[in-house]
Structure formats: structure tokens, C-alpha cells
């Protein structure tokens, strides 16, 4: 019988050891999410500075590096915490292996955080002239205020590889075929623009209407393309056998199905329409709501994409 023939070809594992499943978990999700915010505010901030006068966004000069600093430190903290030997992180600097995207990324992210710290200190001290007025370090930084504008272009260019290098780590993690896609790089970039615009929305209350309109535009475009790319990956991509088997976890209504669709609707679809509508109405509350939803949705989307390939047995 045909059905017996089909059954006869099935192989069943009858004795094996327990296999690890999710190795990189929520800490790595949080790590990627925080890095998207940390680099994204710089990229979107640079775009706004290119389009508008500084006077239209009076607090951008010091709050932009402050947000970046906070989220980059969250990113670095969870990078460290996820290591089974956190103190040995120093080996990346003492014994670097340059073929590893983890090494290259750690060096770039450290340099980026250092530069962001300098920008934050200069910007913060300039914005608050009474703060640490007599401290010698503060005096020196205030005296070199121009360093901010000198460093800023380098920081913007460095933000691009810092936000993208995780995609290269994913590509090097060749056991998980879902990540072996060119789309991964663009997803990281859109995630940074989405998270950056959402992050800056919270400090845009005193900005000009046009600047806020541009923020809403960036958020709308980023959510639209993020959603489109996830849909492309989900429905239309023809992947390797392992990639297809991984997506089957979501397709079949498995463990991550609900989280994935929550991410798509909450994180991308609703914020897109909210952002588009606020471009005309300039409703600050609605725009902040869109930003919160986008940040939550982005976390969930990253979480699903990180975890599902790890559900597959490799041997």
C-alpha cells in the first residue's frame, strides 16, 4: 500500500541524548534591541540635523547622545551578562580573532560607546552651564565644545557598522539557516531607524512641527519596510530545507506564532498608521503611543527570529 510505503520511509529517533534548544535567549534579544535604539537615535538624529536647524530641536544636542549612551550600556551590560565567563571578555581585546564578527563588533561598539560618552559629556555640560562649573574636567570639556561637531560625522558613520555587525554574527552562525539571508542586514538597518525614531519621539515635545513630522515619517517608513521584509521572509522566500523547517514552527501555529503576529500588528502595522496620521494632525500623544508600540513590537519580532532557528535539531 502506498500509505505503508510512505510510513516505511519515516525514520524515528528511538534513543538519543537531550539536545540543547534555545542557547541565545532573551538577553541576546534585549542586547540587539538596545543596540538598535543606541545606534538608531544617532542615525535619525543626524538625518534631522541635516534637514532642520538646530534651534528647531533645542535639546537634541545633549539628549541624543544621552539616550544612545544609556541604551549602548544596556547593550554592553547584557552582552557581558550573557557570557558564561564575563570577566574573560577582556580576551577579546587581548587575544582578538579578526575573522569573528563578535570580535570586530566588540571593538567597534566599544569605540562607538567611547565617542558617544564624549559627545554626551560635552553636550550635557554645554546645555547645563551651572553643572560642575568649577570642576577642571568640566572646564576642559566646555573649552573644547567644538570637538562635538568634529566627532559627530565619524560617530554617524560608525553607527552604521555597529548596528549591522550583528547581522554578520548571524551569518557566521551558519548552523541556523534562517539567518543566512541578505535581508538580515536590511532588517537590522530598518530596526535601527525604527528604534531611533521611536526613541527620539519621546524628547520631541518642544521641537518644531516640521521636525516632528519628519520623525513620524521615518517611523512610518521604517515600520512599513520592516513589516514588508518580515512578510517577504515569512511567506515568499524559498529557503533551504532547514530554513523552511524553521519557519514551519511559526507557520504551523507553534510556540512562537502568537508572538510573531503580535509583533507584526503591534510593532509595525498599528504604529505605521498612527505615524502616518500624526504627520498631518501633529498629535504628540498618539505619536508617543506609536513609538511605544513600535519598540515593544520590535523586541518581540527580534525575539521570535532569534529563537525559532534554535528549535531545530542539528544532528
Amino acid at each position, binding site marked *: 500500500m502506498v500509505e*505503508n510505503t510512505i*510510513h*516505511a*520511509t*519515516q*525514520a*524515528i*529517533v*528511538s*534513543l*538519543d*541524548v*537531550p*539536545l*540543547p*534548544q534555545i*542557547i*541565545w535567549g532573551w538577553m541576546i534579544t534585549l542586547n540587539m534591541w538596545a543596540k538598535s535604539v543606541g545606534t538608531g537615535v544617532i542615525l535619525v538624529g543626524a538625518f534631522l540635523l541635516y534637514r532642520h536647524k538646530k534651534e528647531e530641536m533645542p535639546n537634541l544636542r545633549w539628549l541624543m547622545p544621552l539616550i544612545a549612551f544609556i541604551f549602548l550600556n544596556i547593550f554592553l551590560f547584557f552582552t557581558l*551578562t*550573557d*557570557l*558564561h*565567563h*564575563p*570577566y*574573560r*571578555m577582556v*580576551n*577579546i581585546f587581548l*587575544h*582578538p*580573532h579578526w*575573522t*569573528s*564578527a*563578535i*570580535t570586530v563588533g*566588540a571593538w567597534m561598539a566599544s569605540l562607538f560607546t567611547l565617542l558617544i560618552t564624549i559627545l554626551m559629556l560635552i553636550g550635557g555640560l554645554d546645555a547645563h552651564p551651572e553643572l560642575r562649573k568649577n570642576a577642571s574636567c568640566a572646564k576642559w570639556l566646555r573649552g573644547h565644545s567644538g570637538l562635538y561637531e568634529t566627532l559627530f560625522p565619524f560617530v554617524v558613520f560608525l553607527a552604521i557598522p555597529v548596528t549591522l555587525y550583528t547581522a554578520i*554574527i548571524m551569518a*557566521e*552562525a*551558519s*548552523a*541556523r539557516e534562517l539567518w543566512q539571508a541578505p535581508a538580515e542586514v536590511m532588517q537590522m538597518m530598518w530596526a535601527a531607524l525604527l528604534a531611533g525614531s521611536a526613541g527620539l519621539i519621546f524628547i520631541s515635545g518642544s521641537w518644531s512641527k516640521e521636525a516632528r513630522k519628519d520623525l513620524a515619517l521615518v517611523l512610518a517608513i521604517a515600520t512599513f519596510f520592516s513589516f514588508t521584509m518580515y512578510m517577504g521572509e515569512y511567506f515568499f522566500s524559498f529557503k*533551504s*530545507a*532547514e530554513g523552511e*523547517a524553521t519557519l514551519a514552527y511559526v507557520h504551523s501555529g507553534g510556540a512562537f506564532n502568537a508572538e510573531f503576529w503580535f509583533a507584526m500588528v503591534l510593532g509595525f502595522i498599528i504604529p505605521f498608521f498612527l505615524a502616518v496620521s500624526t504627520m498631518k494632525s501633529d498629535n504628540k500623544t498618539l505619536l508617543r503611543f506609536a513609538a511605544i508600540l513600535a519598540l515593544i513590537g520590535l523586541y518581540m519580532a527580534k525575539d521570535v527570529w532569534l529563537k525559532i532557528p*534554535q528549535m*531545530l*535539531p*542539528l*544532528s
Partner: protein
Amino acid sequence: MKLGFLVDLNLCMGCKGCEIACKVENEVPLGSWRLRVKYIDIGTFPEASRNFTPLRCNHCESAPCERICPVSALHYLENGIVNVDSSRCIGCAGCMMACPYGAIYMDPETNTADKCTYCAHRVESGMMPACVVICPVQANIFGDVEDETSNISKYIMAHQGSGVQVRKPEKNTHPKHFYVGGGTQTLDPLAQERIEGYGLFNKITHLKHIGNPHESVIDRFLEPFKSEEKLDNRSFMNFDKPADKSKGGH
């Protein structure tokens, strides 16, 4: 010199001697395996067969684990072995994410990545790997694949065309671990159904943790300052010490 392995699955009878020898030789902690033998049942009764597949590190010529390791804890030896230096490993688990064969584990005693090294310490002193010595049917064949006169080279030549295979060749990792007598159903995990729950012999399940399951994230930071005795396999064999009833167990 390029050391390689070949397993003749036609000879393997699933005695798991290699698995045990490896554990003893390398003091592999409980719950971890450098080498494991997987049982796969194919077909329906009475036309059913049981197949045994020993699985270990493939010592790839283009090893993804070596490439992704940020500190070169995974590195090549001159004889082609992909070795691991646990004193340098930072425990990022990048190698576990990169190895297409799932051959790397996080040692629960040292909290560092570990895997089969083809018994590099034995090979260095002119001995064969422990799993080769123990195999009662000589299903494990080990040697220099660049030496045409070696047993492994002869075996590969003798069986070429009739099924010398490697796992996942499409990954372009160029494994130096070969199989004779294998097929898709034995070598491709996607061709196998892995039904979770109690089976004929054991519970097919997943590990809930990697590394030390008793160590929290905070413990990782406090680890260098701890002086308490470490848990290892010998702890379970200390019969003089009275068992702690409050913690359960036998």
C-alpha cells in the same frame, strides 16, 4: 598531515562502547557528550530496521566554530584537529550557534565550550583516540587522510562511489569525518522524526540549560571569588561522605 575519521555504519552495532570510552578518557561531565550514538528506527514492523549513528565533531577543514570564536579558543592544530582551549573561552556560545552538526556543548563544570578533539592528547603521544581502541568491530577508522597508504585513505578509496558520505556537505565546511553505509535517514536530522516524550529506551527531550544548571547569572560574576569545592564526576563517587537527604537523590 590531515587527520580524519571514518565510521562504517554497516559494522556499528550500537554498543555505545565508544561513547563510554570517550566519557572516561576525557572526563566528560554528566549530562554532556563529546561523542554520542543515536538510534534511529526505520520502516514498519516486520520490515523495520534499527540504525546506529555515532556523532562527534567533524573537524571541518573550514570550521564555522573556529571562524566565529572571538578569542581563538577554537583553533586548528597542525594535524588538522580543531582543538579547544577552555582557559581562553569566554562562554559566548557563538561556536554552538555556528556548528551545523551540534557537536559543541557548554561544559557544566568549567562553563566553557567543549567538544571532541579526536583525543588530541593521545594522538600527540602516538596513541589512537579512545573510541577507536574500544570499538569491538573496528567500525571507527582513524588516520591521516593525506597519506594514501593509511587505513582510512584505503578505506575511502575502496568504498568510493558506493557511499562515502559526510554530513551536510552543502554547508561547505569540508568535514574530515566520513561515513560508509549511511543514508539520508541516518545522517540528516531533518529526515528523522524526533518525537518528544518517553520512547522505547529513554525520554527524548531537550536540555533546559547550557553550562552549569546550578549557576545563576550573578554567580557568573561572583565565580572568581568563590572558594567552595567544585562539583565534578568524582563528587558522585565519594561513598565515604554521607548523602545529603534534604537534596533528595538516591
